[in-house]
C-alpha cells in the first residue's frame, strides 16, 4: 500500500472542483483513496492525520503553502504512481463536459411543446390507450388538431373529445386512426401519393391507403385524407369527425371531389350523414364497405361497396379518365381461377387469408359474402362465422393479423412479419388448403421490405405443397405507389418471382379467390 503526495505550486482551484477531481482519481482501479486540497495548515493537518507526508523525503509536502495544491493518493504502488506521473490530466475539466452538445432539450409535455412552438397545429398521439384521452384533451385545450393513433379509448372519452373538438373548431382523427394525409404530409401509415383534386374522409387507415394508392396509379392525386377513427360513424359517436371533415373538404379550394370510406354506419349516423351529403355542393363518392343495401344515388352522390369502384367513380367525377388498366371481367377471373383449381387435389378445399390490413380482411369477406360464400374470421362481418381460436384456422378463414390478440406487446404486422410467417408455415402444412390470400402494404412506417419478409415462407408453403403432390395458389396484392421507398414495381416484381398471383388491388385479389372458392365448392358438390 503506497501513500504519496504530489504538490503543484501556486495553483488555485475551486474547492468543489477539487472534491470532484479526488473522486475521479479514487475511482481508478488500484487507488484506494484520494484527496485534492490547497495546502492550508488545516488541510495539511488533516492529511498528516490520514498518514500522508510521513516519509522523510516528502519535502515538497512539508514546504507546501496555502497557495499550493496537494494531491494525496493512497493505493497500489503502480496505480498511484500512474496518477502522480500526470496530475495535470486529472486537473483538466472532464472532457465529457465539453462533449455535451448544445442541443435543445425535448419538451416533456404538450404544454411545454406548444410554448416552444406556438404555431403547432397537429398533435400526433400514440401513447398507451389508458393515457391517450388525457393527452388528446390536453392537445385540444392547446388549440391543436389531434391525430389519435392510440386505440382502447372508451366510447365516452371519444364522444367527449369529439364534442370538445367541435366546440373549438378542431378535429379529432381517431381513436384507432392509422393514416392521414394533410397538405401533402403523410401521417402514420401513409403512402407517398401526389396531391390532386380528390379528398378522402375515412374510418379505415388501410382503406384510405389503398384508395389513395389507386388514385395515384391512375395519374391523379389526393388533396387531403382525413382519418376519423374506426368508430366515428357509430350511432354512439354520430359521425362528429366525419361531418367536420366533410365541412372542411367542401370549403377547401384544393378539393373538387369528396370520397367517404367507411364500414356501414349506424342507423341514426347514416341519417345525419345523408342529410349532410344532400346539402353538399361538391360531388361525393360514398364507399360503404360490405354494405348490403346502399343509399340512393343522385346526380352528385355516387355509392360503392368496393374500394376499386369508389376510385373509378371519384376519378370520373374529377373529370379524369378511368384507371390506367381496366379491371379483368368476372369471366376472365373465373377462367384464370379454373386453371389453378384444375391443378389442385380433391382434398384441397379451403382459402386462407392472412391480412396485415384489417380493412382488407373486411373487404375480402364482403366480396365472398356477395357470392354466398361463408368464411371464418376473428373479425367476422355479418353473416360470417367467428373463429373460436384466432390462432387456428378452420375451413376457409380470413384472419386479421392486426387484431388485438396478435399485436398485444408486439409491432403491427405491417411493420413486423414474424407472426404472419409462422401462421403461413402452419397453413402450408395443412393439406386442406387450396389458396392463400395475402396483402402487402408499403409506406413510410411499414417494413422496409414487406414482400421480402414473407417470400421465404411463401416459397416454403408452395414447396411443401408440391412435395405432398398438392398445388397451392398464393394470391396477393401490394398497396402502395412507385414513390414509396419500397417501390411498388420492385415489390410487385419480387412477389411475382416468388410464384404469387399478383393483383393490383385487394378487391381484385379477393375477387379472384372468390371465383376459385366457388369452383372448389362446385367441385365438392359434384363428387
Amino acid at each position, binding site marked *: 500500500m503506497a501513500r504519496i503526495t504530489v504538490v503543484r505550486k501556486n495553483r488555485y482551484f475551486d474547492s468543489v472542483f477539487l472534491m470532484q477531481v479526488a473522486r475521479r482519481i479514487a475511482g481508478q482501479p488500484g487507488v484506494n483513496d484520494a484527496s485534492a486540497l490547497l495546502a492550508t495548515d488545516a488541510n495539511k493537518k488533516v492529511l498528516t492525520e490520514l498518514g500522508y507526508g510521513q516519509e522523510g523525503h516528502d519535502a515538497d509536502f512539508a514546504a507546501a503553502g496555502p497557495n499550493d495544491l496537494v494531491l494525496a493518493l493512497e493505493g497500489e504502488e503502480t496505480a498511484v504512481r500512474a496518477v502522480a506521473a500526470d496530475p495535470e490530466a486529472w486537473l483538466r475539466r472532464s472532457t465529457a463536459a465539453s462533449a455535451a452538445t448544445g442541443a435543445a432539450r425535448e*419538451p416533456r409535455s404538450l404544454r411545454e*411543446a406548444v410554448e416552444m*412552438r406556438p404555431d403547432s397545429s397537429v398533435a400526433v398521439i*400514440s401513447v398507451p390507450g389508458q393515457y391517450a384521452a388525457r393527452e388528446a384533451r390536453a392537445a385540444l385545450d392547446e388549440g391543436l388538431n389531434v391525430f389519435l393513433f392510440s386505440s382502447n379509448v372508451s366510447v365516452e372519452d371519444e364522444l367527449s373529445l369529439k364534442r370538445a373538438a367541435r366546440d373549438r373548431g378542431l378535429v379529432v382523427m381517431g381513436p384507432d386512426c392509422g393514416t392521414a394525409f394533410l397538405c401533402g*404530409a403523410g401521417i402514420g401509415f401513409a403512402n407517398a401519393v401526389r396531391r390532386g383534386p380528390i379528398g378522402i374522409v375515412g374510418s379505415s387507415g388501410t382503406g384510405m391507403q389503398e384508395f389513395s394508392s389507386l388514385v395515384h396509379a391512375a395519374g391523379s392525386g389526393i388533396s387531403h385524407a382525413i382519418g376519423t377513427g374506426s368508430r366515428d360513424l357509430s350511432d354512439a359517436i354520430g359521425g362528429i369527425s366525419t361531418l367536420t371533415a366533410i365541412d*372542411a*373538404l367542401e370549403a377547401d379550394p384544393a378539393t373538387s371531389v369528396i370520397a367517404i370510406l367507411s364500414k356501414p354506419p349506424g342507423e341514426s349516423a347514416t341519417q345525419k350523414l345523408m342529410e349532410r351529403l344532400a346539402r353538399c355542393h361538391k360531388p361525393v363518392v360514398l364507399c360503404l364497405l360490405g354494405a348490403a343495401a346502399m343509399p340512393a344515388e343522385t346526380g352528385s352522390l355516387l355509392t360503392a361497396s368496393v374500394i376499386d369502384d369508389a376510385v373509378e367513380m371519384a376519378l370520373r367525377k374529377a373529370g379524369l379518365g378511368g384507371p390506367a388498366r381496366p379491371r379483368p371481367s368476372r369471366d376472365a377471373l373465373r377462367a384464370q381461377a379454373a386453371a389453378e383449381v384444375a391443378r389442385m387435389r380433391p382434398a384441397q378445399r379451403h382459402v386462407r387469408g392472412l391480412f396485415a390490413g384489417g380493412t382488407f380482411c373486411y373487404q375480402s369477406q364482403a366480396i365472398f359474402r356477395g357470392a354466398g360464400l361463408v368464411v371464418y374470421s376473428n373479425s367476422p362481418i355479418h353473416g360470417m362465422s367467428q373463429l373460436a381460436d384466432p390462432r387456428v384456422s378452420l375451413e376457409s378463414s380470413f384472419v386479421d393479423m392486426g387484431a388485438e390478440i396478435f399485436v398485444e406487446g408486439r409491432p403491427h404486422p405491417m411493420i413486423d412479419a414474424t407472426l404472419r410467417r409462422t401462421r403461413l408455415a402452419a397453413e402450408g402444412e395443412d393439406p386442406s388448403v387450396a389458396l392463400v390470400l395475402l396483402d402487402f402494404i408499403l409506406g413510410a412506417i411499414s417494413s422496409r421490405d414487406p414482400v421480402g419478409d414473407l417470400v421465404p415462407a411463401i416459397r416454403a408453403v408452395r414447396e411443401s405443397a408440391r412435395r405432398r403432390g398438392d398445388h397451392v395458389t398464393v394470391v396477393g396484392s401490394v398497396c402502395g405507389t412507385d414513390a414509396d421507398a419500397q417501390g411498388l414495381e420492385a415489390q410487385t416484381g419480387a412477389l411475382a418471382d416468388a410464384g404469387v398471383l399478383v393483383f393490383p388491388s385487394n378487391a381484385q385479389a379477393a375477387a379472384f379467390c372468390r371465383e376459385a372458392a366457388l369452383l372448389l365448392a362446385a367441385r365438392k358438390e359434384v363428387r
Partner: protein
Amino acid sequence: MAEPLKDLLQGKPVFVNVGVREFGDTLRAAGYDVLHVDWSPPAGGNAEMAALLDDLL
C-alpha cells in the same frame, strides 16, 4: 363555421409528436417541423394521483 379546419388544410402543418418516436421521425424526414415530446405517464403511472390531477391541473 366560416372556414372549418382552415389552419389544418392550408399552409404547412407543424406537428407535436407524443408517443412512438417513429411517427415524428417520418414526418421530419419528409421535411415537416416536428417537436417530439419526451412523454412519460402522468404522475409516474400512479393512477390514483393521475385521477386527482384530472380535476386539479
